[in-house]
């Protein structure tokens, strides 16, 4: 049933839902002064299901987790961020996070779909027959999605911080959660990302010990650098050395670094089999 539509059709539909969530939220923001929380959440949830369907179709076609080209990596990162948002967003109970998540997911998915070159070649059997490497890749990219949500929380922190310090409490300041809550959520998200990325690295280190030749040095180095930045930031924050604005700025920088690290990761896969003509109908 899933294969009745092509993976890109599912993913376009998902991107449309994310964009609709963003547009709906913007209209509500302009008209009522606050984003539409429930409507945006519902649109993100529908987009999430559609994206999951698209990634499943793509995963079946490439014989594994679809992480073989920039298009797939961006799609998977957006999916990871929305996964976490759908879990924590309810507890967070703040429409602005949903609005920003819709913006992030729409931005990542639409840009990945808009650049055909990023999906020009689909690599099959990306991880060979070894499920551990696949697990490593999935965990690592999932942690990048967590960093995406951390970046959004950090943006909200910086906005709230600015309103409080500058005493510029415009109508939009009421949309932002309390600054202490944003800080706590930021720490928890960073901790979650650190745990997931550590697990991803542990998997690849164990595999590297057994088959060093099978692990790309560039890929390993890029992921390790992101991990190092992540745990260093977390340690400094927990010791009170990195707080408030500087912590929030590093939260954003971490997500940017994670996205940039996908470039060497993708480059290291040039040797894997490509499936240029094999897109699902």
């Amino acid at each position: 049933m899933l294969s009745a539509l092509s993976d890109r059709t599912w993913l376009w539909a998902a991107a449309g839902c994310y964009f609709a969530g963003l547009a709906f939220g913007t209209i509500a923001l302009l008209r009522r002064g606050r984003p539409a929380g429930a409507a945006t959440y519902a649109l993100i949830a529908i987009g999430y299901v559609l994206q999951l369907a698209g990634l499943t179709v793509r995963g079946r076609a490439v014989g594994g987790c679809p992480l073989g080209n920039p298009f797939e990596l961006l799609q998977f990162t957006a999916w990871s961020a929305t996964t976490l948002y759908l879990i924590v967003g309810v507890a967070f109970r703040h429409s602005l996070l949903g609005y920003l998540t819709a913006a992030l997911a729409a931005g990542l998915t639409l840009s990945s779909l808009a650049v055909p070159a990023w999906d020009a070649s689909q690599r099959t059997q990306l991880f060979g027959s070894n499920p551990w490497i696949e697990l490593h890749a999935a965990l690592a990219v999932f942690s990048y999605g967590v960093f995406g949500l951390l970046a959004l929380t950090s943006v909200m922190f910086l906005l709230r911080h600015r309103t409080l310090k500058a005493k510029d409490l415009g109508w939009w300041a009421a949309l932002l959660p309390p600054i202490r809550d944003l800080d706590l959520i930021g720490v928890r998200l960073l901790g979650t990302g650190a745990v997931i990325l550590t697990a991803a690295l542990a998997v690849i280190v164990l595999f590297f010990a057994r088959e060093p030749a099978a692990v790309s040095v560039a890929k390993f180095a890029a992921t390790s650098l992101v991990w190092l930045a992540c745990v260093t930031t977390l340690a400094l924050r927990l010791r009170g050395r990195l707080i408030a604005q500087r912590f929030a700025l590093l939260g954003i920088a971490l997500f940017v670094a994670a996205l940039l690290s996908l470039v060497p990761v993708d480059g290291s896969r040039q040797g894997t089999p490509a499936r240029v003509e094999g897109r699902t109908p």
Partner: protein
Amino acid sequence: MSTPGLFVLGATHHRAALAVREKLALDATAAALLHAELAALPGLREFTVLSTCNRIEFYGVAENGDVAARVAAAFCARQRFNREEFDKICLGLGDEAAVRHLLEVAAGLDSQMLGETEIFGQVKAAYAAAQTAGNTGPVLNRVFQKCFQAAKHVRTHTAITEGHVSVANVAVDLAISIFGGLADARILLLGAGEIGEKTARAFQSRGAASVTVASRRLERAMELARALGASALPFEQREARLAEFDIVVCATAAPGMVLGLDAIATAMARRPAQPLFLIDQALPRDVDPAAAELENVFLYNLDDLAQITERNRLAREAEVGKGRAILADRAAALWRAVAPQLAASVPTQTRGEAAPQKPASA
């Protein structure tokens, strides 16, 4: 002149100065006696008395045109207030205008502190008291019940209640935007004067559980602490123990600063990741202004709070027109429904006259 049918008369902050309102205020005994007197007044079929610090208003259903004037006379006699003076400041509206006025009062559009919500509870209490005493009937029951719905509608569909307009509540709002809930926040009140007490009470009314009072006079601090259900701290320990607190309300009459930059920086070094909110309500200022530059320190002085209060007030004023338009529609619809009820209950000869702006003098 007279007010047949539905009427409202009284005095409000718009035209009656505080000194006058003090004379018009009903204490419990006077209120009880006046209620009994009005209940026995011939031709007054239904009535409700709304008495707050900013208004005394009588809502009634009259059988004839003289009833409103007799209500005013009874009130002035009870309060020993000159009737002619009362007429000069008196609000007098009839029928649809009276309905619209009640709706605006309940929605906070007629309040001195525009958009305040306390009035809603006061109108409800006045109506409940009248209903319990059997002083309301089909007309006032309908008018008041619909008025509560209309007031809620305005509060929900306009920004008339958004943003506090008192300095103490603005300070609490800011604290909430920093800490979220106040249940776990530790508050230090420096100074045991009226301003500090008011702010501390505003914090307590919004969920603050831990308040500590420090004053240059320890006995005064202990006295206020007892009144607030808080604890007291020797004033000289304020800087050494500053790190223990999340919110500091400074409202002393000290001639110099009572919280220096070094003390605040030292406290923050002990709790770098925890925000510190300093509310300086003193004049001259109690807190070194340079503390605002410290990371995780949020310092607001009297001017900052006053500016926010003024912005909120202006924002509420901008919503008044929207609220009035909604209530005018509601009042018109309500009056269309109530008028036939009045026609059934009030003798025909008393209706159809123009609603006067003031009741007649006795």
